[in-house]
């Protein structure tokens, strides 16, 4: 397929890389991991297939050969040759067809996948994920540009059955949004009153957010003076540099709230009041700049239970796909993911 117009900061992504995190390379991967996995299931692609990730604004593509594609994640008003097409459903393109996606009208990150193994690209440590700051992975480590031609990754697994899911499966979004976190690893910097205020105050996603980090406009939590040792540093939330978890909620300089994204530095030296649970890292990515939400504390056990609930939804989509006869498109379960209002 040929890129006619690339969108804003459009890259190739997959489920991220694991082997580089010990040497400074962030895991990366689709900002909305749920929408990415759904895209793979809809098209019968293996986990790890490379997809196009659009941010806030879609792109325009021309098929240079017949292909089956699917869109998940943000609703970017997709159309083929000017006719609207649904989300989370396999779409057949003839040679010469033009697929266009526009400004997101719901959500932020949109995914375009191609059946037959995903898109061909540079793999580093086995992953297709583009890491822009490190100029690594994807298409020469850069954003897509007009005129690029992207082919199929024919080395991937043979085609598997496809499945069509209802629109509301496309991504995880449940306003009024609450983003759930577990306390720590530097909870000693914040007392119970600080946690209570932090979870009571509404926040907004700042427009100064990207795949590296999501800046949050809100009242920063009061910081408790903690005993300092030689190497702790003198700033109110300074700590000895340590590994960063994706979703960590960092309080920079005692006053700025930053949620660590999938391309964040692998280490940091500011105290983290908590860490978002896995599915809410994806849900935060889909909150448009300016969206209001509240932080809500959960226990690690609740975090595991929520993860299992969402995993069961994708598991059911996968089961339906597998049970369909080869060459047909199965219907997805009618039950939307937990927390999503039914249409």
């Amino acid at each position, binding site marked *: 397929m040929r890129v006619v117009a690339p969108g804003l900061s459009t890259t190739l992504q997959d489920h991220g890389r*694991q*082997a*580089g*995190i*010990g*040497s*400074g*390379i962030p895991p990366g991967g689709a900002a909305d991991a749920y929408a990415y996995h759904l895209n793979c299931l809809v098209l019968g692609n293996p986990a790890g297939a490379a997809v196009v990730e659009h941010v806030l604004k879609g792109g325009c593509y021309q098929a240079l050969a017949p292909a089956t594609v699917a869109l998940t994640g943000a609703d970017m008003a997709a159309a083929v040759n000017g006719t609207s097409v649904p989300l989370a459903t396999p779409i057949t393109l003839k040679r010469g067809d033009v697929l266009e996606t526009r400004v997101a009208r719901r959500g932020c990150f949109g995914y375009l996948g191609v059946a037959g193994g995903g898109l061909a690209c*540079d793999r*580093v*440590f086995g992953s297709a994920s583009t*890491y822009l*700051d*490190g*100029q*690594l*992975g994807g298409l*020469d*480590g850069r954003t897509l540009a007009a005129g690029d031609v992207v082919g199929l990754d024919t080395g991937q697994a043979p085609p598997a059955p496809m499945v069509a899911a209802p629109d509301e499966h496309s991504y995880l979004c449940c306003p009024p949004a609450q983003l759930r*976190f*577990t*306390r*720590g*690893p530097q*909870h000693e910097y914040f007392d119970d009153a600080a946690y209570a205020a932090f979870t009571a105050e509404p926040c907004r996603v700042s427009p100064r957010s990207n795949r590296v980090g999501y800046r949050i406009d809100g009242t920063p939590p009061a910081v408790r003076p903690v005993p300092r*040792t*030689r*190497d*702790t540093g003198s700033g109110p939330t300074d700590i*000895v*540099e*340590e*590994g*960063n*978890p*994706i*979703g*960590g909620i960092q309080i920079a300089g005692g006053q700025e709230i930053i949620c660590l994204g999938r391309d964040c*530095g*692998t*280490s*940091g030296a500011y105290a*983290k009041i*908590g*860490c*978002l*649970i*896995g599915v809410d*890292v994806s849900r935060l990515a889909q909150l448009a700049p300016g969206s209001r939400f509240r932080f809500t504390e959960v226990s*690690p*056990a609740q*975090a*595991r239970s*929520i*993860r299992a609930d969402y*995993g069961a939804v994708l598991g059911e989509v996968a089961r339906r796909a597998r049970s369909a006869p080869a060459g047909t498109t199965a219907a997805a379960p009618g039950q939307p993911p937990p927390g999503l209002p039914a249409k």
Partner: protein
Amino acid sequence: MHVPQPESPRFSWCGESYVTVHLFTDIDIWSVAGVLRLQQQLAESDIAHTIIAMVPGWTTLLLWLDADIADPAAVEQAIASAAVAGAGREIEFESRVVTLPTVYGGERGPDLEFVAGVNGLSIEDTVERLQATQFAGMVSFSPGMANCMWIDSSHALTAPKYDSPRTTTPPGTVGLGGSSISLYSVATPGGFQMVGRLAVPIYQPRPTLPAFEDSPTLLRPGDRIVLRAIGLDALAAISDGVAGGSYRYDIEPGSCRVADGELTWT
């Protein structure tokens, strides 16, 4: 002699997929050795198959777990028993000696004079100290970026960080902040004093040199690093070798053994 004592570890779950294990409070080679020992022990433990990756810090170890299969009670038990088992145990970790040609001062190290002044030393003595062997405790933040400390602290220099961080730092910059040296691998904001610049890359996302065939990053936690001073004439020859793909890094295999309160480098 300071003996590494993995204190009874404090740990925090971060979401459902990460655990931060806090082992020590202050930074030294012993704390890094203790962290690397815990990493080795967990890699050989019965929860190893549930660990996606580990990130060693100066005083902490971050575990990234496959939350779909990890049993939280088993993870907590493994951390506790590994640290206890580690308390009296020797450790040997890989510690290569990597010599990196470096141009000090001038436009590549504009803060060298400031650093010399702060430490009350001549430029020559400052460069001499900068060439004393460094220990890479963390390779983190950006790809292949090494954060180092002097092995012999009598050679250590100190300098304050910038009051207002730079918006960008040239790749290869050798920076000094506090008593730590950072080797910048890609253009990133930074606040360390710029004393010099490496003549060779430590990160190559699309490798042209054989050293990067297996990994785009050169340095590993535990490496010893010598920032050898070179002049501009040598820089030209080395740059040609890098551009032509013929440059060979000076990397000696080695290890560090920690036992009975002593460090032994080989």
